[in-house]
Every structure is written in structure tokens, then in C-alpha cells.
């Protein structure tokens, strides 16, 4: 219990020390802690893409898309595609049906659909991940967010109750499969990549690929771990995940 409190306290302090990626307060329809979380971990490009995700998967998906779009892909195609899928489903939804909360409608997607779309987008640019020049570009984008925070430095902002809970939010959006690596992260890039890696890892079927991801994580090489995780979902996820989601709606 105390270990968990320490972890959320440290995570909160870490996030507190990240610079804000944007200032969305004036337009935010979210409560204060969610707004803070998004300011620190998700860019305005991803938020503005208008991806609709069910509340339980919302923050996980946005951090995942931030890492995938902002760092790996360097464009927001996956976000735009997801917004289009939502829009198509929305057209067939009965908006007048007030028995369903708007955010629980089918046009609000789920985390597996978001990961599937990321995998499909990555497959379209498959060459990117074997081409050194492209990998270098990804690495540069990663390094732009890899400013290490030393919480012991007197210059660092210190833990406080409000941010302890932001730390709890970070813990809650991280897959259990990579939770124990959280205590080692020290930058926004490491944290986002770990969140991405965890959720991707949960969808990888191949044991050998899973093992490659874990080996990189053990070495604290979060960047390589995320690329191995990406390779895993690119191999294991097909468009059938999205087709299945849509056919379940029709069914």
C-alpha cells in the first residue's frame, strides 16, 4: 500500500514537472484533474482530432495515440481515421434515444479498436520501420520529449496531494503488464512509450515478440520496447478487429 502511494506520489511529481503541452482550459469540457492530465500528456493535435472513445478507455487511448501519432508516425492519420469511423457509426445511431448516455453510444470506440487502427496505419507505412533514416526521425521526435526529470534536484517541483492523484491517473491508464516499470521512468517520452507498449503488449499474440518487448523493458530501453510492441501489433492485428466491432453493432 505504502509502495503504491510512493509510486503514485513520484509519478505525480514527475508529471508535475512536465511542461504543459497546451492550454486548453478555456475550451475544456472536462473536469480539472482530467484537464491537467491532458495538458501534461496529450497534445492539442490529438485532442482536436475529435476521436470518440468510451470514458473507461478515453485517457488510455489518447495517451496511446499521442505516442503513436506524435512520436512514431509523425502524423495524425490514425486519429483522423478513428474520427471518421466514429462519424460513420454516428450517422446510423439514433441520437434521439435518450436511454443511452451519449458517451456510451457505439460511436464512442474502444481501446482495442484504437490499437487496431494504429496497427493498420503502421502497416501502410511498413517500410518506415526498417529504414534507418525514418527510424532516426522517430528517435529525434522521441528525444524531443525525453528531457529527464530528477526529482531529487532542488530545482524540481515537489510532490503534493493534487498531483498524487494525477499520478494515480497515470497508474490507472497503464496496463498491468508493464506497471512495475513505471517507477523507473523519468521523462514524458518514457512514460508515454511505456503506456503505449503496455496496451500493445496486451494484444500481441506471439510469445517471441512479447519476449522481445520485455527484454527491451528490462534494459530500461523504452524506445526499443515500443518499436518491438508496434511490430507485434502490426503482425498480429488485422482489419478484422475493426470489422468485428462494426459487425457487432450491426448484429
Amino acid at each position, binding site marked *: 500500500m505504502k509502495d503504491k502511494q510512493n509510486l503514485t506520489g513520484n509519478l505525480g511529481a514527475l508529471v508535475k514537472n512536465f511542461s504543459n503541452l497546451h492550454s486548453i482550459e478555456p475550451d*475544456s469540457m472536462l473536469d480539472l484533474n482530467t484537464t491537467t492530465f491532458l495538458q501534461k500528456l496529450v497534445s492539442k493535435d490529438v485532442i482536436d482530432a475529435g476521436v470518440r472513445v468510451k*470514458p473507461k478507455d478515453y485517457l488510455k487511448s489518447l495517451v496511446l495515440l499521442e505516442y503513436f501519432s506524435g512520436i512514431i508516425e509523425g502524423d495524425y492519420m490514425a486519429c483522423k481515421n478513428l474520427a471518421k469511423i466514429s462519424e460513420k457509426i454516428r450517422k446510423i445511431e439514433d441520437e434521439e434515444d435518450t436511454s443511452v448516455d451519449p458517451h456510451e453510444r457505439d460511436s464512442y470506440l474502444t481501446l482495442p479498436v484504437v490499437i487496431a487502427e494504429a496497427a493498420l496505419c503502421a502497416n501502410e507505412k511498413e517500410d518506415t520501420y526498417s529504414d534507418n533514416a525514418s527510424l532516426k526521425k522517430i528517435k529525434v521526435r522521441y528525444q524531443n520529449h525525453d528531457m529527464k526529470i530528477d526529482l531529487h534536484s532542488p530545482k524540481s517541483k515537489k510532490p503534493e*496531494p493534487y498531483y498524487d492523484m494525477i499520478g494515480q491517473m497515470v497508474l490507472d491508464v497503464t496496463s498491468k503488464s508493464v506497471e512495475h516499470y513505471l517507477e523507473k521512468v523519468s521523462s514524458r517520452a518514457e512514460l508515454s512509450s511505456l503506456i503505449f507498449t503496455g496496451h500493445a503488449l496486451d494484444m500481441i499474440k506471439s510469445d517471441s515478440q512479447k519476449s522481445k518487448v520485455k527484454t527491451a523493458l528490462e534494459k530500461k530501453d523504452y524506445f526499443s520496447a515500443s518499436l518491438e510492441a508496434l511490430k507485434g501489433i502490426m503482425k498480429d492485428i488485422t482489419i478484422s478487429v475493426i470489422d468485428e466491432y462494426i459487425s457487432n453493432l450491426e448484429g
Partner: protein
Amino acid sequence: MGKKVVQGGELLFKEDIIIDEEAVRMQLTIPSRIPIFSIDEMQVFYNSHVFTLTKNSSKDAMIKVYTTEYGLNEEKSPKLQEDEYFKANTAEVNKLKEEFIKKAVIGMPDNCYDKSLEKQACLTLVEKINHAYDIAEHSYKAPPSKGLVPKLSDDSIFNTYIGDFERAMLLDGKVYRLETIQEYLSMFQKAIEPKFYKELEKKSVLMTPEEAFKELTDNRHKIHPWGFPFIRNKIWYNEKSFKIFLDGIYWIPKFASTSKNAEEKYRNAIERKIKTDAAEEGFGK
């Protein structure tokens, strides 16, 4: 020609004493850790009191962040914080005062025997300082209080000159105004069916955020679909929503501005106090 004073065997005229206006306006490097704005955690301001979050939860004054309820712990009053600031930095502040007088008042002897002349120069200097800073007392706007947290009598620089902190929150360099549910809803009046808005306006005074959420959700067909999430989700959305309860009222934090301007104004007001204190303390050594 002004008053003639015999000073150390020399003649001194009032005209010989010059106030250097540029030096009056000159920025001082005041001790950096100023009260309020140097505190690196969420603070709530209410009726001149200052609160921070504490792990000891309380039913009367609480903030819920994500899944945890915190109590609100009253911090030292701004006046006390300022007194401590000046006390802790006495030597530095005295040096600033001395340097300021040296630069701002030209021609005043170290020991002026004519006290009326010195007093006149002091008054002129104070007047010029006040003119240079143009920081007026702000008019206090009382929050819609339930009287459980009465206004603190506090003549601090912060509460006297820095406005819009009667009910506010400071977090990460940003100022949030605390609004009642009723005030928050009033911003969206045009997006809500008039009859329902009137009912809601009345009811909302006594509503908890959860009750407001239910009322809005149940009547969402009476609210413009685009406005609905803005209206409802900021008040309350689920068990992980932010919530603040103080003085018997639930408040919604609404972003007002970054704290940069308020902090700069506060620094200027502190700087002005150092200068006026220097002037009022006289020039004699």
C-alpha cells in the same frame, strides 16, 4: 528660491534636493521567494483565507481529486506570510531601501538638521512612488457566502491590492475562479430551454454536483446537444470527477487567467512597499 538652511557650514536650498523620477520607477530585485506565489502546490483562496490540501479529509471543507477526498487546511494568513517574508529578508530589504534612497534623493545631506525639510522631501517621494506604481486598492467582491467561513480581517498587500482572489484557486501558474453551480449554469442559459433553465436555476442552489448531473442527464433533450457535454461534464461526470466543497457550497473551478499578471502586480506592490517604507523611515542616519 526655497528655504535656506545652514548645513555643516554650507548653504542648502530646498531646490538643491532633487527626486530622481527615473530612480523612483526603477525596478528593485526583491527577495525572490515572495509569499503565496512561491508556494508550489494547489491553493484555495476564500474570503481572504488561504487553504491547501491535506490528507485529513473533512466534511465541511473538502476537495476531491480523481478518487480521493482531501481536507482543506488553513494556511498562515497572507499578512502573516508577508510579515515573515520581510522578517526573513530584513538585511536584504534594508539594503534595497538604502540603495533606493541614495539613487532617488539627490542632494539630501546625511544628517539633515531641518526635519521639516526632510519631512517635505519624504512626502514628495512617497507621492511620486505611488504615482509611479498606480496600484489601487481593489474593491472586495464578497462571494455568495453561507457564512461558515467569515471574511478574514487581513490588511496584507495581497488581500488589499491583488484583486479577484476572494474565491479562487491557484494551480500550476493558473488562476481559477470558483463559481457556484448556479453561476456556472448561467453561462449556458441560451443553450437550455427557458422553462427548464428557470427550474434548474432555482434548484441548483441546493444541488450537489451529482444531483445536478442527474437533473441535466435526465433532461438532456432540453439542452442543445453541442452544449450538453460542456454544461454537464465540468460540474460532475462520474466518481472520478473533481469536486470542491467549502462554506456549505459546491464550487466549479473555471479557468480565469494565468497567474503571471497577478504575480507581477504582487511583486510590484511589494516593491512599492519597500520604497515607501524607505521614504517614510526618513533619510537621516
